[in-house]
């Protein structure tokens, strides 16, 4: 009984502190507190403006520093976090982001297929326009993927994702 409460307390503490462990629901602390709520929610920037590879290849990836610099060389250059980003760009030092969305190695997921099928990014990644700090919105375990595949008549053969 006490043990159960202890576990709960620790779990809650970790969630509330937003530690650097990722997983569904956890919003890890990032080296630069990039805010999707302002960029996507307020400024209505399209996902593929910064993540162009999502429609092109297997990995959506994280934008390169040059993508940030393209706007932020003139947009709010005095913001302390913008200054950090621009300095990193000048020093050719990439930002080491903490991964939020993780799939194990034995799952082969291709972004391009899904984006071209017309699935909105928010479907799997959550409503980023409301996230000041990114967290994994869905569990993204096999059951999660399969439910969507079944609803949309996508293949559910093992080799579709495990090859």
């Amino acid at each position, binding site marked *: 009984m006490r043990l159960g409460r202890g576990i709960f307390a620790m*779990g809650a503490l970790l969630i509330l502190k937003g530690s*650097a462990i990722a997983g569904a629901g956890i919003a890890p602390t990032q080296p630069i507190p990039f805010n999707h709520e302002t960029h996507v929610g307020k400024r209505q920037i399209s996902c593929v403006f910064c993540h162009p590879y999502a429609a*092109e290849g297997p990995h959506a990836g994280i934008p*390169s520093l*040059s993508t940030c610099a393209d706007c932020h060389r003139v947009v709010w250059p005095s913001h302390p976090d913008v200054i950090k980003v621009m300095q990193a760009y000048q020093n050719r*030092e990439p930002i080491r*982001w903490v991964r939020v969305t*993780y799939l194990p190695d034995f799952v082969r997921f291709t972004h391009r297929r899904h984006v071209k099928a017309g699935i909105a990014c928010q479907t799997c990644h959550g409503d980023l326009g409301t996230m000041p700090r990114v967290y994994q919105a869905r569990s993204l375990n096999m059951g999660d993927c399969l439910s969507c595949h079944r609803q949309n008549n996508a293949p559910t053969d093992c080799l579709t994702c495990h090859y």
Partner: protein
Amino acid sequence: MKRRDFLKLGGLSATGSLLGACTMPHRARTVVPYVEQPAESIPGVPNTYATTCTMCRAGCGMLARVIEGRAVKLEGNPAHPVNRGKLCALAQASLQRLYHPDRIQGPLRRQGERGNASFQSASWEVVLAAVGDRLRALAGKDAVAVLSAPLNGTRGRVFESFARALGGRGPVTLDLENEETLLVGGLASLGLPRLPFYDIANARMVLSFGADFLGTWLSPVQFGRFYGAMRQDRPGVRGTLVHFEPRMSLTGACADAWIAVRPGTEGMVALGIAQSLMTQGLAKPGFADMAPSLEAHAPERTAADTGIQPEVLHELARDFATISPALALAGGAAIAQTNGVSVAEAVHLLNLLVGSAGMAGGVMAGGGVPVRELQAFRPSRFQDVQDLVSRMRSGRIQALLVAGVDPSYLLPASSGFQEALQKVPLIISFSSVMDDTTTWADWVLPDHTFLESWGVVVPEPGAEVPSLGSQQPVVSPVFDTRPTPDVLLSLGRTLGPDVARALPWGSYAELVESTWTDLGGAELWLKARQEGVWVGKASPQVQVRPASRPLTLPRSEQSGDASEYPFFFYPFLTPNLHDGRAADLPHLQELPELMSAGVWSSWIELQVQAAERMGLVEGDAVELRSPHGKLRARVHLSPGLHPDVIAMPMGQGHRAMGRYASNRGANPLAILAPLVVQGSGDWAWGGTRVRLSKVEEAPSFTRVERQPWPPQKAGGPGFLSLQDLREQTWPWDGRHDRSR
């Protein structure tokens, strides 16, 4: 639900998701994007670049698959008429040199004594300035020599111009193919202006003298394609291949008949078949005047020398004349004899006698190259090498530049190269690896690998149609190396107006581009890079002009008396190690030699009965002695060998060439005699005799097969199979199944 339970459930679900998160491995925790978004590549999506392989002179077209700026796989280019999408082992493994841990990563300056030196890194500015100062003082005095691989294409153009401007002569080139012998033989007998094109694909009978064309000779990928076409392309036609070679190579193993011929007697065999054709009345008209000179070579007269029953040659002559089209070709050690040119002519005579010279399915003139400046290179002869060595020894050569070749390894001890090298005050190497020659260098200016280089490559001998290969970098340079042609151009500009005038190109890439635009404008420059090759139309066949004249066949001279040195020595090229040029690539060391299954070692092959007579068993350590040197190796018994012959694979025995090749095995080239092919000046490397004695110790010999020939009695000494090696040296963690 009670509150307590609700809280417990809440805790459990939080823990549950935490547990899920803990399965993410640490290495996946961080995502590091690019600083600058790359223009060309999409992460995870490969780009394919077309280039040309230059591991040997065949010039096969190659496609490189590159993911996120890293080359990951090489394949053949289907558009290239030489290889049509196939690649050999050397080409496949060449990727390993790009990222090799022992690659020379930047310019080096020698510290300490030559040969025992440590090398210190230096910047290109410092090195080019220092080398430039030294060379400037020597320009135009015939005191600078360039030693390189055979010249080809745009790279050859720069080397030739540089060497002539600086030292008054072209580079001295080193190669074991003995192309000069083939050229002289072809010109004399058939009037061919360049290397002949053997239309094996359309032939129905092929007689091969010494040329392992499926394994190593000239352009094995191309010949392999032709061979496949000969066997399978025509319904109902299988074709016949008869191969004469002292050792059963891959070509011998594929042949319908492999005939073990005594080394040096291939010419007699060819003329025996020719004589038989004439006496059986099967020769084409017009050669009657040759009959008297052929009498001496009747199969009955030469049987004692060749060791071949006369009836065999008579039957072959009948087949050769009646199965049509038929072609005969000679190469390899058969022409690396003192009488090599005559052997080539004798074999071409067979083509003339059955009328296959200049015809489909026979010997033709290959497609030439439409760019005059790229055709002009004649390979050097061994005599040129000997001349260079004597100039080095006498102190006339004040600077030696070595690029693309390892003369300390390739040249025999009897050439005196190593001693003469010590007399040269300035030695510069452009090698990518610290090989035997480079360990003696004063300065190392490392070249790019061909995967990082530009170039226009002329395939040799080339396809049936004219073609030019495009070479382009498939990755950005991995290290601080520079392409040697560019280094020569920038050096050349600082060496005085005469040298600068001879090198009028701003950069090597500029020369490459202008070569393409001169040939076909900007469209061709783009197309060449996209497709990797320019293919011309089949030019009208150069008329083959036979020169029917009395043929003399001198005997081949061997170094060493038969009484003292009872065996012929047969060093052979292998499809993976070739002449040792790629021994540093572990893929090639791992590849078993096709007939003996030997890996990661060198060995000597002895015919089974000959070994029994000497009381030798598989794996015995022996010392092999020629009049010019000795080496140690272990014995492999082979049924596929002439009993008077000892064979040894080339390629090992590097004193230095990276961690995978250094101090491994022995180098057969080191003990060869400096014999010269009469009439061409090439190296008659097939003419050395040896003797054998049993010793206690020799480098180990590893095979990937357990069963030696003959089946081993109770574990012979020194015989180590790969299985043994794994069990003895690699720690197992118990999970591997050892029951096999």
